[in-house]
């Protein structure tokens, strides 16, 4: 179950050269600044833009190859555009039916009621697209795409047209989809918070080239190309709530390398969530410190050291039972502690953000 994509394409002033292998499940984020070619890659995958030379394999089906090009309408995919792009002359229900009716009967397992409920659009079915809010339109667009029972879902910055408040309303729907969908999703975004919350796999693009491609945690912890999701370097860990401390309003979450105390966000035990730890919130001690306000102190080993942009600072990649963590400390501290790869240290984590 993989997606193999290779596209070469040149416009005046822009060229794209991409060759990636993506997992056949989960959410892959195509991340990069505006104009880096994210949307073009997505359009090539959909067949909306025809790459001069390209090859696309989706779970062993050839969609494009030398001398073979499956037109868009024959590709079993769902595409969610930046602007919802609903048909203005049809009601919401007719919009949903448009794609569904064009799928062969046998390939129609997508349950209408379930998807309508998942995206909470049952009360909108008889309305016209013109009367919907931006978020509602986008939810209808996603439902419309899912109802064609696609084998690949492509999403082009589906939140770009929404304001901040609508965005935070909308993200939970995408997270629900993330948990429920069996099919691979390619998600184009330049917004770091969306990527941190939704992606399992990250492809970083710059000027039409792939800078990095790999599991989200891996890419974020790489020191040779610190990917700044937003303001700072940091890692994202998948975790599960294992204990709640009602008295102090804290929750203990378990990730691959250990457990962390986080603020209790009301999630019950067993709930999966993501936490984000920024490099600036991690400090390093040689011994376990007891007299400290820091709740989370974990044994770690130094994996790698690298220079930060400012000459006073260094980035240290730590390994906590297999999970990566990045700490930003001064180079002077690094020298004083004599940090070197392989050393055992204690990671003091001052802040852990629960991101959904």
């Amino acid at each position, binding site marked *: 179950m993989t997606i193999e994509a290779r596209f070469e394409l040149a416009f005046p002033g822009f060229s794209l050269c991409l060759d990636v292998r993506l997992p056949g499940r989960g959410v892959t984020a195509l991340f990069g600044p505006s104009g880096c070619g994210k949307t073009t890659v997505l359009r090539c995958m*959909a*067949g*909306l833009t025809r790459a001069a030379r390209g090859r696309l394999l989706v779970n062993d089906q050839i969609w494009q190859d030398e001398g073979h090009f499956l*037109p*868009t*309408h*024959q590709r079993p*995919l*769902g*595409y969610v*555009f930046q*602007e919802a*792009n*609903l*048909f*203005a*002359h049809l009601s919401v229900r007719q919009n949903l039916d*448009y*794609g569904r009716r*064009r*799928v062969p009967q046998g390939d129609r397992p997508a349950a209408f009621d379930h998807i309508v409920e998942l995206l909470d659009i049952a009360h909108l079915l008889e309305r016209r697209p013109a009367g919907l809010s931006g978020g509602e339109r986008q939810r209808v667009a996603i439902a*419309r*795409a899912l109802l*064609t029972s696609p084998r690949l879902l492509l999403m082009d910055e589906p939140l770009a047209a929404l304001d901040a408040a609508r965005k935070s309303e909308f993200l939970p729907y995408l997270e629900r989809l993330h948990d429920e969908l069996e099919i691979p999703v390619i998600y184009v975004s330049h917004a770091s918070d969306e990527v941190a919350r939704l992606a399992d796999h990250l492809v970083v693009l710059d000027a039409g080239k792939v800078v990095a491609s790999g599991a989200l945690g891996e890419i974020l912890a790489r020191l040779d190309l610190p990917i700044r999701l937003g303001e700072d370097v940091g890692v994202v860990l998948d975790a599960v709530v294992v204990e709640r401390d009602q008295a102090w309003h804290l929750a203990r979450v378990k990730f691959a390398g250990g457990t962390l105390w986080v603020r209790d966000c009301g999630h019950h035990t067993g709930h999966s969530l993501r936490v984000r730890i920024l490099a600036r919130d991690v400090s390093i001690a040689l011994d376990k410190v007891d007299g400290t306000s820091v709740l989370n102190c974990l044994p770690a080993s130094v994996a790698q050291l690298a220079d930060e942009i400012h000459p006073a600072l260094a980035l240290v990649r730590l390994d906590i039972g297999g999970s990566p963590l990045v700490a930003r400390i001064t180079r002077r501290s690094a020298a004083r502690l004599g940090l070197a790869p392989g050393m055992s240290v204690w990671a003091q984590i001052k802040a852990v953000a629960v991101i959904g």
Partner: protein
Amino acid sequence: MLESADLAAITLTIRLAGLTTLLLLIIGTPVAWWLARTRSPLKSVVGAVVTLPLVLPPAVLGFYLLVLLGPEGPVGRLTEAVGLGLLPFTFPGLVVASTIYSMPFVVQPIEQAFAGIGEQPLEAAATLGASPVDAFFSVALPLAKPGFITAAVLGFAHTVGEFGVVLMIGGNIPGKTQVLSMAIYNHVEAMEYAHAHWLAGGMLCFSFLVLLVLYARGWNRRQ
């Protein structure tokens, strides 16, 4: 009030305008679709040719059509050779001339409607499994409906009002090629102003109603 010749002219005009509009919607739609979407350098040439009747004096258009369709013209020879006979001074000749004359009034609104839809809804249709032909009928046509209504109304009204081309190509044969504007002209020539008033006033009301309906529709949509 109205003589039988007047009534004949009215029915003839309605038949002519209806048939012309129908033909133009059939011919004009693919032309408009092509003009709205092509990147071919031929676009400007075709666009100019289609728009030509808008600026050309009707007499000029009528004159050249008469020459082309006449016994010495290439089209005239062709129609004679295939057994259709000569088109000038016949009802089919009027239809051909009107179709050319009213072309821009039908093609332009449709072209603008198609261009206004843009690429996006069609791309969405493709990602939902619609072939290009399917998408044309299920998305492009319904979205361009206002353009089609404008085109039909303008095409019909413009054909009803033509004079110069009809005079050149159709002559003034009562019951055969005598249209409304011709009948009015005849009445005025004969100093029968009362008759002319009935017909001219009717045309005025018709034109006003057409525009009223057109504008009311536009106004309703904006509400």
